[in-house]
Each structure stands twice: as structure tokens, then as C-alpha cells.
């Protein structure tokens, strides 16, 4: 074992491999840059794929690799499972899949760190050990955190926040103990007990971090876990002295970080609020709130109103995903467009369970991306909109966020559907949304409610519109 450690230092770098990594890094950045426009995105990502393939093939010739059995088994099994995911995961399940992939990425980083520590703890420099500690802590907490998030999104674990008295204190104790173990390992590399204590506390902390968070806050959590998973990969790069890992991990980490900030802004939460995991703590007191009568509209009336409109804007929310209603929306839009109605879609940044969730669903239903409007772009148009159709969205169209400074979501930017001439809200039942907040939109003069499963309702509406 010692000879291997020495070999590690003495051997001259493998220039061909390093050069392959360099090319791959450039292709990764190129690929991400191509994502700035949907027309260039696909080709760019193909380049990134080529870079990845080259880096993996090149690594198989690494001079430290002597045994191929486990490698080949891992590559084959991983490719099979990965291909199955790629082919068969439905678009509505993208949030769960993404959470799971954060867990997979993080567990890989954590295991590499633990294995490195097991084999080389004695010969590592202080700096390498601190990078390794960070890698393992981020890796372990992201693993369990993402698994919990995935469970909540899949419905295996209840989506409601799990909160109890003293939770914040307990979390702080766990966190401080984890850091304490880390500090001890920094000064005494042979204290394996503390190292495994740190690993266990990391796993525990990940669970504690995500259980208090409700499903509606998932876009922030997903972005944050994305960031942690990336940073743990970057830390792996520091441990192994491997630049491509540092570059790819940092890109991933920053991407997640930027998305977290965007999601925070879209929910009017501060980033510190998020970083310390306190974002489950929004109080859900309904207060006096809006009262009044909700007006129901019949399917036929709704169809007539839509058919004779000049401009219709659809505002989708998570309800669209749960009802798998994206194709039904498209059918209705087709029927309307055939009559000469202008149809647009207003997409709130935190609609759904992950960043961009709604865009992907609508794109799947063949909605051209030119018809998908961001919140800032659609809001000025709502004054001149005849009918705004809210499909399974609630908080993102709640006028309380704008009008009521005492509302828990006060200050959150919304899609101002209440400015449209009429609003039709498609809703499963009369209950409140995920956040449990009363929505005054539903009581407004120009709002009509249409209850039922969004997919059925939309299909029937499309049929009615064709018959008008």
C-alpha cells in the first residue's frame, strides 16, 4: 500500500490523459454556454457528451488502475440503469429524478472521499484532509437530504413539513458535532472513530435539513442540493488533485447556487434564510383573510367565454403536473387558435417543483417555446387579456402577495391574473393550496371557479370549444 502511495507522487503526469481532461473541460463549458438558447442547446450538449466519453475512456488507461473487474461491472450496471431512466422517466417525474441524481452524485463523492481516507489518511497533507472533510460532509448530507426530497416528491414520504419543538436547537447540535469531528480529524488523521462519526452525522444532518420543508418550497431545496452536490464534486477534485473535477464540480455548484438565488427572489425569501435551512418556518396562519362567495362556472359557459375571447393566457402550476394535463392544455389551445384566439402561457419561476418544471411539461406537449412567457413578460399583457386560465396554480397568482403586507407571502412577485378581464380557475376541490393560504383571487368579481380534475376539464373544454 505504501509503495502505491509513493508511486502516486513519483510518477510523471500522464500528458495525454491531462490533455484529454483539458479538452473535456472546454467542451463542458461550451455545452453549458450553448444552453443560453434553445436552438443551439442540443448541439452544444452533444459536444459535452463527447468530452465526457473521451475523459472516461482516457481514465481507463490511468496508471493507477490495475484491476478492471469492478470497474466494468459498475460501468455496465450504471449504463443500464441510467439508460432506463433516460428512456422511461416521464417528464412529470423530472423533479424526483433530479433529486435522486443529486443523491447519486453526492454518494459517489462521499464514497470516493471515504475510500481515499481509508487508504491514504496517514500520508495526506492538512489541506487535502480539509478538502476531504468538506467533500465527505457535503456528500453525505446531500445524499440523505436528496433522498428525503425525492421521497417527498414521489409521495413515498408525506410532503407536509415535519416540525417539532427544539428542532432548530437539535439541528445546531448535530451540525456543531459534525464540525467538531471534522476539526478533530484535521489534527489527528488517524482518529478514524471521529471520521466515521462525521460521516454518520452528515447523513443524519441531511435528513434533518429537509424534513421540515414543505413540498411547495421544493424548487429552492432542489437548487440548493444541486449546489451542494456540485461543490462536493469540486472538493473531490482538490483531494485527488484533478482539475477537471474542480471545474465540473464548480460549474455544477454555481449553477445550483444561481438557481437557488433566483428561486429565493421569486419567493421573496432571503438567501441566508435558505442557507440556514430555516425556510420551512413560514407561519401558515390563515388570519381573517379574504371571505366571500366563490362563483362556479359551468363547462359550457367557460367554453363560450374562451371561444369568443381575443386573447387567452394560461397560467400553469404544480396541479398541471399532478393531473398530467399538459397535453390537454395544448389540445384546448389548438382548438382556440383554430378559431383565431391568441394563446399565451405565463410561467412563474417557482411554479411546479423544480426550476423550469412547467416549461418542460408544456414543451413535451408541443407548445412552441415562443408562446411560453416569463412572469415579467406576461404581466404587462394581462390588462389586455380577455380570459386568464389558472391551471392548478395557487400561490403564484395570489394577489395577497402584492396587496396584503401581513400575508406570509407578502412581497413575492406574482403573475397578476386578477388584472385580466375575466379569470377561470381550474381547481381540484374547494380546499386551500399546498401553502394553506386563503387566496382572495378566488373571491373576486371577475373570477369563476371550475372544479374537477384538470385533465378531464380541459379535454371537455376543448371538445366544447370545437362545438361552439
Amino acid at each position: 500500500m505504501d509503495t502505491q502511495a509513493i508511486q502516486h507522487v513519483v510518477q510523471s503526469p500522464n500528458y495525454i490523459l491531462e490533455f484529454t481532461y483539458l479538452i473535456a473541460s472546454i467542451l463542458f463549458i461550451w455545452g453549458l454556454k450553448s444552453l443560453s438558447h434553445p436552438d443551439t442547446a442540443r448541439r452544444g450538449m452533444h459536444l459535452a457528451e463527447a468530452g465526457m466519453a473521451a475523459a472516461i475512456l482516457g481514465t481507463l488507461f490511468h496508471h493507477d488502475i490495475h484491476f478492471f473487474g469492478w470497474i466494468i461491472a459498475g460501468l455496465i450496471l450504471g449504463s443500464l440503469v441510467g439508460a432506463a431512466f433516460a428512456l422511461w422517466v416521464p417528464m412529470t417525474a423530472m423533479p424526483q429524478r433530479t433529486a435522486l441524481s443529486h443523491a447519486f452524485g453526492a454518494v459517489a463523492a462521499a464514497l470516493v472521499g471515504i475510500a481515499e481516507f481509508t487508504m491514504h489518511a496517514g500520508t495526506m497533507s492538512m489541506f487535502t484532509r480539509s478538502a476531504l472533510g468538506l467533500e465527505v460532509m457535503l456528500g453525505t448530507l446531500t445524499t440523505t437530504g436528496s433522498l428525503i426530497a425525492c421521497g417527498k416528491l414521489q409521495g413515498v414520504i408525506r410532503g407536509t413539513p415535519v416540525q417539532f419543538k427544539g428542532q432548530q436547537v437539535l439541528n445546531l447540535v448535530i451540525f456543531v458535532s459534525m464540525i467538531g469531528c471534522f476539526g478533530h480529524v484535521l489534527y489527528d488523521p488517524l482518529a478514524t472513530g471521529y471520521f466515521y462519526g462525521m460521516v454518520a452525522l452528515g447523513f443524519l444532518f441531511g435528513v434533518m435539513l429537509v424534513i421540515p420543508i414543505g413540498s411547495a418550497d421544493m424548487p429552492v431545496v432542489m437548487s440548493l442540493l444541486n449546489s451542494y452536490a456540485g461543490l462536493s464534486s469540486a472538493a473531490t477534485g482538490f483531494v485527488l488533485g484533478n482539475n477537471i473535477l474542480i471545474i465540473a464540480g464548480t460549474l455544477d455548484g454555481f449553477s445550483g447556487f444561481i438557481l437557488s438565488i433566483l428561486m429565493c427572489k421569486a419567493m421573496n425569501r432571503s438567501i441566508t434564510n435558505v442557507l440556514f435551512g430555516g425556510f420551512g418556518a413560514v407561519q401558515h396562519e390563515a388570519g381573517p383573510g379574504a371571505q366571500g362567495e366563490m362563483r362556479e362556472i359551468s363547462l359550457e359557459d367557460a367554453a363560450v367565454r374562451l371561444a369568443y375571447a381575443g386573447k387567452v393566457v394560461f397560467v400553469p402550476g404544480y396541479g398541471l403536473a399532478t393531473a398530467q394535463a399538459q397535453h390537454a392544455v395544448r389540445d384546448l389551445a389548438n382548438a382556440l387558435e383554430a378559431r383565431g384566439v391568441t394563446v399565451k402561457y405565463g410561467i412563474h419561476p417557482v411554479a411546479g417543483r423544480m426550476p423550469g418544471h412547467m416549461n418542460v411539461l408544456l414543451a413535451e406537449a408541443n407548445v412552441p417555446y415562443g408562446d411560453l412567457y416569463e412572469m415579467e413578460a406576461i404581466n404587462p399583457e394581462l390588462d389586455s387579456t380577455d380570459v386568464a386560465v389558472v391551471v392548478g396554480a395557487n400561490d403564484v397568482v395570489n394577489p395577497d402577495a402584492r396587496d396584503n403586507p401581513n400575508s406570509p407571502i407578502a412581497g413575492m412577485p406574482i403573475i397578476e391574473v386578477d388584472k385580466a378581464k375575466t379569470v377561470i380557475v381550474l381547481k381540484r376541490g374547494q380546499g386551500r393550496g399546498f401553502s394553506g393560504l386563503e387566496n382572495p383571487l378566488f373571491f373576486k368579481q371577475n373570477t369563476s371557479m371550475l372544479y374537477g380534475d384538470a385533465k378531464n376539464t380541459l379535454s371537455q373544454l376543448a371538445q366544447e370549444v370545437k362545438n361552439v
Partner: protein
Amino acid sequence: MDPMVLIAALYVFALAAFLGYQVISRVPPLLHTPLMSATNAISGISLVGSLVIAGAYEFNAHKLMAGGVEAHASWATLMGFVAVFTATVNVVSGFGLTDRMLKMFRKDIKKKEAAK
């Protein structure tokens, strides 16, 4: 780690962070889900680290059962194997799904449908 190598690594980190910020803040919200999937696939490059761990040491089931220091190399191999597996899943499914999603984003489907 040699101090010079460390400093070079910090340079790489700082520049990658800056570049990442510049590149990723230009990605429109339209493509945020594919972005997450793509960065996930790309950070699956940690596979190259896992490969080296999974293939560097000899796996010996007897030593593994015996435990102690002798078992370390076999444990490391097993951990490397799991890491290779999960990282490969991420690379394959990440790129696969990104492509599947990007394929769906089209500028004007009506024209295409009319052409048929």
C-alpha cells in the same frame, strides 16, 4: 499536496466559479430544468475519480471478511464500485434526459405540422 499544485488548483476553482457565473446566468428560465439535468451529468465527471479507486487495489473476499487493516483495500474497491455505478447512472441518465428535453423545445411547431 505540493503548495504550487494547491495554488494552481485554487486558481482553477476561482476561474471556474467566475466563468460558471457568467455562463449560467445567461441560461433563460425556459431551460432551467435541462440546465439542472445537464450540470448533473457534467458533474458526473467525478466518475473519473471513482474509476481510479475501484481499480487501484486488489479485492480479496477473504481479507474483507477477516477485517482490520488488511480489509481496507477491499472496502475501498467496493466503495469505488458503488461510486462508479452511481456516477455512471448520473452521466448516462443526465445526458440522455437533457437531450430528450431539449429535443422537445421547438420554435414553431405549427409550421412543421403544416408542412406535413
